[in-house]
């Protein structure tokens, strides 16, 4: 995403400059020892996608895609990913603010903890969620006996698992934007009579909106593709917890054509998201 951003910006600047300079930069700038691995890298990233398109069962595709299971899984995926993003926004943005602006002992340690789910294998995250929120979990047993709330193996559980995995992306993105934003705008707001919360709501939030949007897209994309934590914590029940990635994985075992069709749908959704948001948000500062 960043690379799109920078290359676009670079293209913009170049278009303003003299044309001769542009050609010269392109010719001269790339030494072979860099160009060759770069092209291999590009091919490596593109090849699987091309293979997916080449082997797609185009003739039976309409039938595959109109099946009720596909729509069920797709709808569940979109709903859960969006819900997980919403939850991440509500609790993740304040967390990012805390990490960026508040001064408290052990802040570095807390930040490390927040980023832990980024590197933690999602399956481990799922197991940890079960131990915390499962029916006999540390908190889950109280949720169950006091409120009758059971999270594992429910749609809400899917949202919980996806939020756990996706929120760090949002937090890191928003925290970075907050650090880059000038805190003196908040000071200016307080000298005008705004409380710290008002200053955050009316000044900081609008200023970091592009960063929040970028973080939300990252989190949404991560939630949409979530597999490990979801299947561990929420299981794999069609219509309730079977999201697209789970459906793709299962379909691959007994109906590869369906798996390819489902994958194409996810690919299309991803491309649509990138294309739709790129101009509005990704190129913003």
């Amino acid at each position, binding site marked *: 995403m960043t690379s799109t951003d920078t290359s676009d910006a670079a293209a913009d600047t170049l278009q303003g400059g003299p044309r001769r300079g542009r050609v010269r930069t392109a010719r001269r700038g790339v030494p072979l020892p860099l160009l060759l691995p770069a092209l291999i890298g590009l091919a490596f990233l593109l090849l699987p996608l091309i293979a997916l398109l080449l082997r797609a069962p185009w003739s039976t595709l309409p039938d595959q895609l109109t099946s009720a299971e596909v729509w069920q899984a797709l709808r569940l995926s979109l709903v859960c990913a969006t819900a997980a993003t919403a939850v991440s926004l509500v609790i993740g943005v304040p967390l990012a603010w805390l990490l960026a602006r508040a001064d408290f002992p052990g802040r570095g340690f807390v930040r490390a903890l927040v980023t832990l789910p980024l590197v933690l294998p999602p399956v481990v995250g799922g197991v940890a969620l079960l131990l915390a929120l499962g029916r006999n979990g540390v908190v889950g047993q109280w949720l169950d006996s006091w409120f009758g709330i059971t999270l594992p193996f429910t749609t809400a559980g899917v949202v919980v698992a996806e939020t756990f995995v996706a929120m760090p992306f949002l937090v890191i993105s928003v925290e970075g934007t907050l650090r880059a934003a000038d805190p*003196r705008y908040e000071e200016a707001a*307080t*000298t*005008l*009579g*705004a409380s710290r919360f*008002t200053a955050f709501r*009316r000044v900081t939030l*609008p*200023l970091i909106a592009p960063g929040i949007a970028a973080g939300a897209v990252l989190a949404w994309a991560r939630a949409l593709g979530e597999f490990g934590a979801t299947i561990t914590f929420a299981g794999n029940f069609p219509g309730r917890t079977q999201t697209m990635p789970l459906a793709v994985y299962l379909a691959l075992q007994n109906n590869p054509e369906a798996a390819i069709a489902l994958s194409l749908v996810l690919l299309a959704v991803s491309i649509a998201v990138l294309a739709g948001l790129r101009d509005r948000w990704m190129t913003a500062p």
Partner: protein
Amino acid sequence: MTNTHAAAADGAEPPQGPPAPNHESGTGGAGGKTNPAEGRVPTTHPHPKTHRTPDGLDAHLVVNRTTFRLDIKLTAAPGDVVALLGPNGAGKTTALRALAGLVPLTAGHLRLDGAELDRTPPESRPVGVVFQDYLLFPHLTALDNIAFGPRCQGATKAASRAQAAEWLARMGLTEHATAKPRHLSGGQSQRVALARALATSPRLLLLDEPLAALDARTRLEVRAQLRRHLAEFEAVAVLVTHDPLDAMVLADRLVVIEDGRAVQEGTPSDIARHPRTDYIAQLVGLNLYKGHADGHTVRLDIGPAITTTEILSGPAFVAFPPSAVTLFRDPPTGSSARNHWRCEVAGLETHGDQIRADLTGELPLAADLTTVAAAELDLHPGAPVWATVKATQTHAYPA
């Protein structure tokens, strides 16, 4: 110095172009308290006119940093414009931030119109700040930037915007109401920032290097405007600057700060005539020496004596402008000047249509001379010269 006077005269001109400000003082009429923002001139006094004991600012600011300690006392009556003048890193901005509540006081006190403010958070202080780079909220229009303060103070959206529109009109910026800050020029931004700070009806207005972000041409114009707005402002205004010209044009009183301490305080003309530190002397373009006076003679701490017209005794300063110095190639014999020293040219630079010679030797000093005189004397770095100053052109005062 001549510059200062010229600009001061500019600034003192009565307002002509922009709409003459409608200066309404006192309370805003009988029903003013219930809806003070609606359709009223924004300078309306926000507080009921009860008897307020010691009006104005009474502050003793002490801020300890790891490598730096600020310790200054500041007092000002309503209507005063006080300039904190000092070199970079002297602690001026820290003092301003302490007044605004953005930096906590380590010790001391802060009273404004008799109310203790040291523990009051910045949002609850009746203080308005114009920041050095203005810090206009980039996502809000000029109008909404100004309306922000009244809105935070509880005015309705419509009332605060009406108030902001009035301020824009006073600043002559009505046609820029819907402009975002990035589309405003430096001078326009400065006026919006000033209006934004004033729209909260502060009892203390703080300006951090108000003209530093402007180019030379805009600066002159904005300085004159700012001077007018400050003259209208009925509460205390404190501005911070490292530019003596800004300080002298805008302020009634200067507090010179060096290394976190106030080294001199007084009216601009007083400070210009009686500098007490090298920094101020340089600012106002004077040669300044400290010594011990005995009658007409001041024996300088650095060696030579200077004959003066004043009769003093005890520690004293002697000051004279570089233009009072006359240079000779040979030791002066018949000259009426009793003060002459053997010096050496350390450096030369053009200074307007004059040459400023930097001299070292018996008495380090700065001398101004014409280009012709410099050529006749064959001045160049390292050239030996004799410098003389008439006693009548020196000025001695007790230290």
